[in-house]
């Protein structure tokens, strides 16, 4: 019973965080803040939802597979985001502040 | 409502099939044509799997307490079709790479004109 309540709390908060991330994907002004919104909430939502699901198993093979998914996603997802942001930086994408700076220089 | 649920899958399948077909016959770029072929192909897969689904059924892997299973036969056919599909896609893409090397372009209307040069 306690496990179920705990799992409910974890699942709902995980769902909430992933929703905020998706909204951030639209609301934030430039690419780097959007990466931030997507990747940070991705990690926390993964942790919360997978642990919520683990509490619902009988702690058998299914729980181990879920743990494997958790480890895998926690390794790959931030790495992918990091590499993407780095690649964007090398590709010459500017942050909003930098764009403003260059515009100010042009005007001044 | 039940009429829509009964046939919705097939309608989407037809839509996807026609989208793929349209790309294949209207696009000039060969890579895009291959993407169109893949879309067409996937729509056929979805059609087979939709036919094999039984309402209230479960995945065809034996488990305790489950009496109704979906039809495993379409799954087998489509499983192998997917692997073969990707193999043929690879051959198609390899041909495109060679066409690019021979003609310098992958636009259909451009290398047609160059036939005389080679």
């Amino acid at each position, binding site marked *: 019973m306690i496990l179920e309540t705990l799992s409910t709390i974890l699942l709902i908060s995980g769902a909430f965080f992933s929703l905020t991330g998706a909204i951030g994907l639209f609301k934030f002004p430039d690419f780097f803040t959007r990466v931030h919104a997507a990747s940070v909430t991705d990690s926390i939502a993964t942790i919360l939802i*997978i642990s919520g699901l683990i509490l619902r198993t009988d702690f058998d093979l*299914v729980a181990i597979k879920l743990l494997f*998914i958790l480890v*895998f996603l926690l390794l790959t*997802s931030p790495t992918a985001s990091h590499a993407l942001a780095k690649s964007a930086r090398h590709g*010459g994408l500017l942050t909003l502040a930098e764009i403003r700076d260059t515009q100010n220089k042009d005007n001044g | 409502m039940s009429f829509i649920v009964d046939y919705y899958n097939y309608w989407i399948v037809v839509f996807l099939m026609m989208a793929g077909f349209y790309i294949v016959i209207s696009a000039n770029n060969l890579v895009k044509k291959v993407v169109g072929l893949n879309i067409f192909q996937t729509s056929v897969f979805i059609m087979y799997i939709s036919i094999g689904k039984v309402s209230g059924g479960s995945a065809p892997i034996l488990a305790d307490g489950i009496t109704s299973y979906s039809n495993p036969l379409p799954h087998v056919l489509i499983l192998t079709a997917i692997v073969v599909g990707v193999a043929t896609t690879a051959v198609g893409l390899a041909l495109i790479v060679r066409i690019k090397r021979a003609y310098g372009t992958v636009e259909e209307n451009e290398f047609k004109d160059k036939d005389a040069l080679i």
Partner: protein
Amino acid sequence: MLVLTATSVAILSVMALALARALKADTVYDRILGVNMVGTKTALFIAVMGFLGGRPDFLDIAIVYALINFIGMIAVLRFFEYTATDGEPGDKEQSS
């Protein structure tokens, strides 16, 4: 059960939003970000769906999703490094 349904609906709507981002992106990088998000959320969605359907032993598919999503991302980055010399990936996409 209600909680699982609510969670799956939430993840599904996140996927829809990420898909919208990928379909209508300002830069290539936004598109990749959307694709990546669809991938990771799909893995989560399959995990939740297994519990929802009462057969949670199909989690292998979620693992494959996470794995293939990662490889796809690496392939995209490699593509960028490769084509970096001829054309700027950061420029605005043209779409009709």
